[in-house]
Structures are given as C-alpha cells and as structure tokens.
C-alpha cells in the first residue's frame, strides 16, 4: 500500500534518524579501528554522541555575521538533501526516502551544495586558515569530481537511466550483476574519488591540522560545531549508501546495508592510516591523472 505524503515524511524522519545514529556509530567504530592500527585502545564507540552533546551545551558562542551561521545550515541541508533522494534499502517503504522524486543528478548536486555553502560560511569567519582551507577544499573538490562524474556517467550509460532505484534494480540477482563485476573500472575511479571526498589521508588537505589548523571549521564552535558533527554523520552515511547503490548492488535489508557501507568506509580508513597527506597541488595532479583515465576507460566500456 502506498503511504500518504504525511506518512512518507514521517518515514523519512525515521530513516534520517536511523542514518544519523548509524553514521555516528560508524565514525566511533572507525576511530576505534584506527586506534587498533596505532596500537591503542581508542575512544568509546559512543564518543561522537557525547561530543555533540558537549558542543551543543556550550554556554556562549561567537558569530561573524549571517553567512557564518548559514554555513553549517547549508552543509546540513546538503547532507540531508543528499540522503533524502537515495533509497537506503532497496524495496523498503521505510527507507525509500524520496528517491523516486529525484535522480542521480540531483544527488550529485546536493553533495556539492553542502561544501559550497560551507565555503561561503567559513570564508566569513575571517580567519586566514579558514580561507586557505576553503580554497584548498574547492580546488580538490573540482579535481576529484572529474573521476567521480566520469564514473557516474559510466553507470548511467551502462544502465541507461539516472534513476537510482532503477540502477539498483538492474543490479539485483547476485554478485555478477553488480557494477563491481560488470564495470570494475568505474568502481575503481569512484572509490579513489571517494577517498578524496571523505577527506581521509592522503587527501585530508582541507582540515590538515599541522598545516592550517583545522581549515574551514577553525572558527566554528558550540552549537554550530555540533551541527557540523551531526552533518558529518549524515553526510558520510548518505555518500556510503549512494556508493553502495551505484556500485555494490544496493541492499535489500538493513543488515546488508550496514555490512556493505561499513566495508566501503573501512577501505577509506585503512588507506588513511597508511599514508601521509598530499599537498593540494599533488592531490589535484593525482586525481586528474590515473583516476581520470580509468574513469574515461570505464565510460568507454559502458558505452560499447
């Protein structure tokens, strides 16, 4: 039975709540896994929750004008918007979100909308490190967008649609139908782009604590920081779900979703622990090199 629009909004809230918590736990558990690599015990898995409560419970905060406040709002809107147009679990009414109302292009737009909004707000902070961080972030974003967009084009061309539900539907029926199996080059380009997108090493140029502590959010504090932390969880979850849908056959139940997204994210953290950080120019050169060529090849494979 098709739920009413009110019901769908209610479902969307439930789904958003689930992905927020999942994202926070994912960040917490990944911090613990990285700690294991480093030979430590690491923070509690629920530490991100406490951090958000703490940040929001700060008693005072400073502002630098309206745009400064709008930065995290835009970013949160970008995160929520991205998630709202992706089906988290294929075929589920609860986790379908509004995926039938939007397509892949809208999702891609939302991924970058948040970053642009953040750039505007952080620039307002007036700190030179914020400004440098913003310029680095935007420069790297344009670079990793090339392989990512090529890979998305390959997927769209392969399945002949931009509708994410249709793309997932086309991948059902076992591993051999996944994009991973049918067009591995597109997956390679996309995963490399994801390293840049998630800002782990070696592509952590945006927040680089030893260089520009800590980039765009330098001036953000208190509840604004709490908002950014919440968004980080949602946005991470949304991107992981998108990747799972596009390349790894989607998920038909929540357990499969958790396992697949966990593994995708794990690749990031794993790479992040083993590498130092590239410079901005090096990372741009990297993304415009091999990953772009792989992306072009994947498009060619998909078209012929």
């Amino acid at each position: 039975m098709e739920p009413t629009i009110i019901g769908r909004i209610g479902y969307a809230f439930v789904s958003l709540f689930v992905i927020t918590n999942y994202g926070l736990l994912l960040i917490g558990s990944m911090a613990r896994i990285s700690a294991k690599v480093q030979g430590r015990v690491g923070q509690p898995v629920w530490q991100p929750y406490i951090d958000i409560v703490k940040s929001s419970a700060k008693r005072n905060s400073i502002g630098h004008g309206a745009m400064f406040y709008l930065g995290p709002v835009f970013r949160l809107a970008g995160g929520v918007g991205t998630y709202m147009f992706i089906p988290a679990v294929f075929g589920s009414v609860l986790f379908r979100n509004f995926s039938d109302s939007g397509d892949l292009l809208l999702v891609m737009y939302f991924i970058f909308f948040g970053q642009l909004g953040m750039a505007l707000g952080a620039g307002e902070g007036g700190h030179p490190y914020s400004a440098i961080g913003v310029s680095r972030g935007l420069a790297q974003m344009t670079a990793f967008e090339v392989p990512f967009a090529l890979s998305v084009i390959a997927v769209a061309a392969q399945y002949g649609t931009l509708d994410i539900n249709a793309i997932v539907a086309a991948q059902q029926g076992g591993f051999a139908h996944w994009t991973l199996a049918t067009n591995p080059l597109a997956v390679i380009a996309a995963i490399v782009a994801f390293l840049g997108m998630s800002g782990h090493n070696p592509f952590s140029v945006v927040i680089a604590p030893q260089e520009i502590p800590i980039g765009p959010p330098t001036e953000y504090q208190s509840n604004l920081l709490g908002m950014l932390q919440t968004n980080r969880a949602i946005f991470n979850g949304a991107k992981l779900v998108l990747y799972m849908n596009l390349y790894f056959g989607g998920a038909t139940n929540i357990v499969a979703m958790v396992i697949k997204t966990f593994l995708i994210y794990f690749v990031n953290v794993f790479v992040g622990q083993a590498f130092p950080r590239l410079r901005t120019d090096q990372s741009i050169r990297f993304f415009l090199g091999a990953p772009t060529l792989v992306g072009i090849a994947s498009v060619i494979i998909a078209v012929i």
Partner: protein
Amino acid sequence: MRREKQRVIPPAERATPDLDSGKYLVMWQGPQHPGITGNMSLRLVAEGDTVVDCETHVGYLHRGFEKLMERRLYMQNFPLVCRIAVPEPDFNEYCYAAALEELAGIVIPEKAVWLRTLSLEMMRLASFLMWIGGQAGAFGHGTIAQWSVTMRDYVLDLFEELTGGRIYHMYIIPGGVRGDVPAGFYKRVLETMAVVEKNLDDIELVMFHNAVFKMRAEGLGYIPRDWVDHYGITGPNARAAGVARDLRKDSGYLAYPRLDFQPIVGTESDAYERARLRLGEMYQAIDLIRQIVDMAPKDGPFRERLPNPLYWRIPAGETYVSAECTRGEYGFYVVSDGSDKPRRVAVRGPSYTHAVSVMERLVRGVNIADVAGLMVSLHTYPPEIER
C-alpha cells in the same frame, strides 16, 4: 639529483615584500599551532600558496637560565641545566659536568665514562624516536607518531630504572654519575633495544617506502653544502649535505674513541635525506648501546669524591665543552671567577642557527603546506634558542 629540487637562493640581504600592495597574505604560524615544534612562532608572508618571507619569533620559553645560574652555587645549577632542552636533557648535564670537571681538574672513573656514554646514546635514541613521530605527523601521518613515541616510552622506562626520572634524569653529575647500574639492567636494555629495532623496521617500511612521504619530502628544504659553514649548521643537517662532521668522532669525548662507528653521511640534503639519515642514526645508536653494554666495566667506582658542594670553589678560568646531540653541536661555555658561583654560563644550542637563520632562509619559496614539515626536518627545539 632529485627532481623538483628547490631553487637555491644565494645568501644575500633579505628583501622585504611590499605588504601594502595587497598581493600578500600575512599569517602567523604559532605559537598556538600544532604544526610548530615547541613554542615559537613564524610570521609568514605568503603570495598565493608560496611563502615569500618569514620572520621567526622566539622567546616564549625564555626563563633566563643564564642569569639564574649566576645566582646559584655550582651544584645548585645542576638540576637547572637539564631543563634547558626537554627532549634530551642529558646533553646539558654532560656538557655542564664536563666543563666543571675540566675547570676543577677532576678525572672521572672509568665506569662513569661508560655510563655517561650509555646515557647519552639512549637519550639520542629517545630523542630521535620522538622526532620521527613529529616528522611523520607534520606530513599528516599520525600512525608513525603513535608507534615511535611508545618506543620512546620504553627507552624512558630504562632511564627510569637507571636514574629514577623519566624526563629529567639529573644523572650525569660533576664527578661521575649519580648511581650505579641496577642488577639485570643491561639485560633489559638489550631486550628493549630488540623491541625498538623491530619497530624501527616497521617504521622504515611504512614511512620511508611510502610514495606519498617521498613526494612530500623529496626536494623539500635543500641545504647547499656551502651553507654549512656559513650558517654554522651541525649535526644530521650538515651530514645530510655531505659534510662528515660528528663531534663524537672528531672530539672523541667519553668512550666514543673506543666504540666502533662511522658518521653517516648523506648526499641529497633534502628533508627525505635528513629523515633517512636520522633513521640510520637510530640504528647506529642501538648498535652503540649494544657495544657499550658489551664493553662497559662491570665493577669499580662510579663517582669521584667531590669537595663539599656548598663550599665548592672552582679556580678561575673558562672552557667550552661541546657534544654531539641529535641536532648537532651542543655546548656549554663556563667562565669561573674563583668564587662558588659561575661567572657566566652560555649555552650553545644547535637550534639557534637551524631554527632562526636557516629556517628563515629555507622557507622562502616553500608551499604553506610544507612549512611544518620543513621545520621538523631541521629538528629544532626552541628552548635552547632562548634559554
């Protein structure tokens, strides 16, 4: 010759950029900045992503040691000197003690010579372990720091057993060393060295064979060979430029003439080469510690009898004692006027030139992102600049 080698600017007068032109961005790196070693600050003038000018600002840690020492008895100064350089206090203790012994004409027992050498070499190892974490961390690789600082902690455990202190040991006192070796200590030294050596192998694999680290560090901060004398560069920074100078070999103090080692010399003189060279020195330190454990006399006195320190007057004179610490030439210049307090104590720290003159010169033309990595690769430590 590696590609992307930094352009060599001949030593010349510093040209100040026109800040009013609107072309430049002035920003401060430090003192509250994770990418700075210790507590000092750099005032960078950047054009785009490139630093065009730099001024170092020091003095955040100035405690006036040299003035305080003039107010204290010779023996009262002894707990003070080790606080000049926190990561490796033993070199302060050794240089101060050796200077006093030379002025007062005291000859220390054989066992003290070996224990001092052991203490200095362990300190070198600990300091390098701390440094390598900082170098990896400056390029964003936190894992290495987690490993190496823990290894340093194991070395500090040895110090704790030997001297009772983790950071400040106050072990090398005038006249010898403060205490004897605990039973079974040498065995634990060897065990720890095995652990550290194994971990260094891991670090070499993960850090030095890492493409990203190579991309960042190769060609960064090239020090030409003719700068070495002009700027008074010493230690690994000079050796990486191909100048085989090592005071342990040249001056031959303590037990070093009897130990088997050769100074490690590099050629490329960039950040990667310096890191590589320091890794080699860590292996060398482990090797030297093993030799010392093997050769050190197992019995005998460890301290010469001193006069009552409250009334200890040292004959008038002056001397300069230097030792090769991890960063270069560390020296104490002590002037005595025959009273029970020193007339003047001056400390020569290698960072004095590395962190100020060389840093200001090298940082020009470097990407903002590389400033932290460059600074760490010079292995500077601010307290010995300002004392």
